[in-house]
């Protein structure tokens, strides 16, 4: 019985199996299967992460509902949990860091890729890669012992004296807070922006530059009007990589942000970020609701990253289309 079913009707499949094997010998199928598995594991991991965060935050989701994202009291003793100050702190510190790091990083990348001699560029690239590998707690220590005193004694008083009429620069200067956290984050993400942007700029075809120069443009004009627009999607990519790092950074932020859940227009005010509060309170969470609220904060951070990434994609598509259109007209 068994033999008939396997041998008689299977002439076709056996042939198919053979051709499959022969194709396997070429290696293409194997390579495709293995790489497909790797790619699929990324999707699987993401889904698993969402599933775990979703399952782990049942209590606060049922108790607070959407109010979790709208309220700003975080009280483990009286079991009140609202995520707003943490979301605010995460967004503000990331925004400050990009505001500082993007011009510096892209400027440095342009210099290294376009203007500097190759030997200088390669030597500096070595240092940049080194900086990108420094653990974040080291940046935190740097922040506490160098940036914080500098901010308290010089930068914050100076900002207050000159731009103090802005609500951004009001209030007592503790040295720690949103601004300091943003600047420490900027120091941390600049290497990413420089390193990736430099590679992208270097990969712009040589004839693009030569065409611009042959039309009589100066070196800066060819860089700014031809090379940089050509590399724009890649440069954006480096900025979003930096943003992702800034959003999720824990250790360095918690050391300089002040760890106080506040929503304040002043950048001098101490604040809190999502990643920092999770790291600080998870091990000593007093109740299940407290613990699960921290997990839900993790979910909030995931959503935030997801949304910002989506916006980033749209931005890339929009700007690259505009670039093409202006190029044609």
């Amino acid at each position: 019985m068994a033999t008939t079913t396997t041998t008689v009707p299977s002439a076709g499949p056996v042939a198919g199996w053979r051709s499959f094997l022969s194709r396997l010998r070429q290696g293409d199928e194997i390579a495709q299967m293995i790489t497909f598995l790797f790619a699929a594991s990324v999707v699987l991991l993401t889904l698993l992460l969402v599933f775990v965060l979703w399952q782990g935050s049942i209590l606060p989701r049922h108790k607070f509902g959407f109010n979790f994202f709208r309220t700003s009291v975080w009280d483990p003793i009286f079991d009140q949990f609202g995520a707003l100050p943490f979301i605010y702190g995460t967004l503000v510190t990331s925004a400050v860091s990009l505001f500082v790091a993007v011009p510096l990083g892209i400027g440095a990348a342009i210099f290294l890729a376009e203007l500097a001699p190759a030997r200088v560029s390669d030597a500096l690239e070595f240092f940049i890669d080194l900086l990108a590998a420094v653990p974040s707690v080291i940046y935190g220590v740097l922040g506490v012992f160098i940036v914080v005193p500098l901010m308290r004694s010089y930068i914050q008083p100076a900002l207050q004296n000159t731009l103090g009429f802005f609500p951004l620069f009001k209030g007592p200067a503790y040295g720690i807070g949103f601004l300091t956290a943003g600047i420490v984050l900027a120091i941390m993400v600049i290497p990413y922006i420089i390193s990736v942007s430099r590679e992208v700029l270097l990969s712009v075809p040589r004839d693009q530059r030569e065409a611009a120069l042959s039309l009589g443009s100066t070196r800066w004009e060819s860089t700014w009007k031809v090379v940089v627009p050509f590399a724009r999607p890649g440069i954006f990519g480096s900025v979003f990589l930096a943003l992702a790092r800034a959003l999720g950074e824990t250790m360095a932020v918690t050391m300089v942000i002040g760890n106080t859940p506040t929503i304040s227009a002043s950048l001098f005010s101490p604040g809190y970020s999502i990643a920092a509060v999770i790291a600080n309170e998870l091990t000593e969470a007093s109740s299940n609701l407290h613990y699960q609220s921290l997990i839900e904060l993790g979910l909030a951070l995931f959503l935030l990253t997801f949304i910002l990434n989506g916006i980033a994609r749209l931005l890339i598509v929009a700007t690259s289309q505009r670039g093409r259109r202006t190029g044609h007209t």
Partner: protein
Amino acid sequence: MKRITALLVVVLAVAGVLCADSALSITGAGATFPYPMYSKWFDEYHKKNAHLEINYQSIGSGGGIKQVTEGTVDFGATDGPMNDDQLKAFQDKHGFGILHFPTVLGADVVSYNIPGVSAELNFTPEAISGIFLGKITKWNDPAIAGANKGVSLPANGIVVVHRSEGSGTTYIWTDYLSKISDEWKTKVGKGASVNWPVGIGQKGNEGVAGMIKQTPNSFGYIELIYAIQNNMAYGRVKNSSGAFIKADLASVTSAAAAAAKNMPDDFRVSITDAPGKTAYPISSFTWLLVPAKFSDATKRDAIKGFVKWMLADGQNYTEALSYAKLPKEVVAKELKALNNVQ
């Protein structure tokens, strides 16, 4: 060849027997504050009982309670006693209770940095709670200046510093504030992490100490042992009999002695704001959490043996590490309670 194989088998068998003999390992997890003491104890005890190895992970009191409740470790450790809900959760899950055993004592001290003031300041409970509630905001407030005649305090704003992560140090601090201030009790309460009315959070004793050191006009609380080991200056605190007491091993033990007389049978007692002329008011026990029943008799006997040793010889190691000893009455009571572990 055969002979070599036979030899190998014998060697392996002997090694297996030896390993099995020394394989008794007990795991615990919890409080970070007594960790230096515990690791010293476990190390010394291992020297005396080579077959027994106790692994302790200082993951924090909350984590210790959680893990011992889930049964992933053999015993827990905590800086704040388990509350009734947590005890009930343990009872519901296992069908038997869990016991608290005080091991050593610790304390929180008040630290500050006021430019131009080098004197050791006195703090009343009203001043401390007022500062932490955000009601006293200047150093020259009468509530502070009144207890420090002759010291010229500046009119600068006070920068309050507290712990950012959940910690036993914060539990002791907020337990004290809840006792001396009704407003604190109803508005904020006590716990490993609370909703602070004012202040900046920093991670760990070293974070708070560092922030105070570099921020002018700051004020915060630090664990006594950390302050002693780092030669930090700290203030005196007025106790319940009206005396200003500096925290040290003697004044902390004195707070425990006062509480020892009416120690409850489950040892879940808070000794903040303790009576007694020489008692330092921001002191606390730290506890081991031992399940009342063990299915594995060798494990049970090993843990009981360790606790017995810790209460006798172990107490001699405490002062070298700046922890205060348990009072004799408490030790006697704990030895009796140890019989309840079955």
